C-alpha cells in the first residue's frame, strides 16, 4: 500500500488540503483530485507547455512538479485567471484576435502570457515570442497568439463578459 502525505496549498484563492501519494504530479492533482480540468496534459515530457500554471506567480509546467513540492504554495490555474463576470485581458485578447483554433494549447499559452504581462506589462514582440517559447501550438503558426498577447498588453483592464439571454 502506498503511503500518502497530507498537503495544504492555495489553489485559485481557496485553501485545499488533501492526502496525496508523493509520486502524484501537480497536473494530475489539479485535474483528477481537484477536478480542475482546464489545465491540459499534452506531451507529458516538459516540452509542450499545455500544463502551464502559476506557482507563486511564476509560469511552470505542472507535469514536472510533484504535488508534494507545492505544499504550502500558491497555485493559479486557467480557472482562476478571470472570473464569472470578467475575462482576464489575455483571455479577451485570444477571443478577439483568434489566438486559438483547436484550443488544446490555449490554457497553457494564456497562463504563460499572463505571467509575462504581470512582470513586463509592455513587452516587445520578441519578448512575447520568447515568453511562449515553452508552449507549442500545432494550429495557429503563433502569429495570432502573439497578436492576442500584444492586444492584452494594450488593454490591461478585465473585460466584462456579455451574457446573451
Amino acid at each position, binding site marked *: 500500500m*502506498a*503511503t500518502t*502525505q497530507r498537503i495544504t496549498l492555495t489553489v485559485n484563492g481557496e485553501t485545499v488540503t488533501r492526502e496525496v*501519494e*508523493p*509520486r*502524484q*504530479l501537480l497536473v*494530475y492533482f489539479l485535474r483528477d483530485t481537484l477536478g480542475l480540468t482546464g489545465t491540459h496534459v499534452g506531451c*507529458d*515530457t*516538459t*516540452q509542450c*507547455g499545455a500544463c*502551464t500554471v502559476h*506557482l507563486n506567480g*511564476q*509560469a*511552470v*509546467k505542472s507535469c*514536472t*512538479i*510533484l504535488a*508534494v*513540492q507545492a*505544499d504550502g504554495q500558491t497555485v493559479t490555474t486557467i480557472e482562476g485567471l478571470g472570473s464569472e463576470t470578467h475575462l482576464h485581458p489575455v483571455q479577451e485578447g485570444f477571443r478577439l484576435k483568434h489566438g486559438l483554433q483547436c484550443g488544446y494549447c490555449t490554457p497553457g499559452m494564456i497562463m*504563460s502570457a499572463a*505571467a509575462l504581462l504581470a512582470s513586463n506589462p509592455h513587452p516587445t514582440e520578441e519578448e512575447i515570442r*520568447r*515568453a511562449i*517559447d*515553452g*508552449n507549442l501550438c500545432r494550429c495557429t503558426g503563433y502569429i495570432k497568439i502573439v497578436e492576442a498577447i500584444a492586444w492584452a498588453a494594450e488593454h490591461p483592464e478585465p473585460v466584462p463578459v456579455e451574457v446573451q439571454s
Partner: protein
Amino acid sequence: MIPAAFEYHAPTSVDEAIALLQRYDGEAKILAGGHSLLPMLKLRLLQPAALVDLGRIPNLRYIRRDDGQFTIGALTSHAEVEASAALAQAARVLVEAEGLVADVQVRNRGTLCGSLAHADPAGDPPAVAYALDCEFQVQGAGGARVVPVDEWFVDTLQSALEPDEVLTAVRFPVPPPRTGSAYRKFEQPASHYALVGVAALVTLDEAGTVARCRVGITGVGPVAYRAQGVEEALVGRRPEAAALAEAAERAVEGVDVLGDLHASVPYRSHLARVYTRRALAAAVARALGQPDPGE
C-alpha cells in the same frame, strides 16, 4: 506518465538531508528543481526508493559576491541567474547560457547546481563551468570538500558527487579586467538541448594579446569538456580573426564526437568549430569593450 512509487522526504537542513541519503545507501536521489530528475522518473529510467527534496532547506537560494568570487546556492534557479545584473556585468557567459536553457517555465524551476550535478552531456551549464573555472562546494557525512571543474564531470550523467553528498553551491573567481566571455549555441529546436554549445572566456593583457583563455564545450562528446587545444592555440597571440579561426579548428581534438539522428559526426564536428570561433570572437569583442561581432 507516472513515476514508480518512492518515499518522499523534505529535510530542513543539509545535515538532515545527508543523514537521509546515508540511510538509503545509494537508493535515494536528491530533488531540487526536479527538471532533470522528474522526467527520468516519469520515463522510469530511474526508480529510486526515496527522494530527498532540498526545497525546504533555508538559505540555499542566493547569488553572492565576496572575496573576489561569486557563489551561487544549490536552489538558485536558472531564471534567477539569468536575471542577475551583477552576473550579467561580470560573467556574461553564464547569464547568456542560462537564458538559453530550455524555456521560461523550465528556467523558473530548474536549478543551476542541479544541472551541474546531473551532468547532462547536452546541458548548457557544464560548458560554462569550464569557462569560469568553477569550483563545486560539496557536503557529505565526512564534512565539506571542494571539487575543481576539471574533476567534476566524470562521464555521461555522472558528476563527482557521491550518492551521500549534497552539492550546496558552485563558485568561481570574478573575472579580471579586460576579460570578455560569451556562450554560443546551436540547439535542437524541439528540445532546446545543445547540439553544440560553446562557452568561451578570454582575458587580454595590456598589450592586447591573449593572456588567458578558457573554452568549455557541451553537446559534442559523451560529457562536456574543456577544449585545451583551443586555449593553448590562442594564449600569447593577438586575438585577430585568423588566430581565432585557427584556434577553433582544434575544438574537437581528442574528443569522441557523438553522431545521432540530429547531427552526424562530421556535421557536429563542423558546428563545434564554427561555434567555437563565434564564441571566441564575441568574448574578444567584449574584452575590448566593442559590440558583438556579426555572425
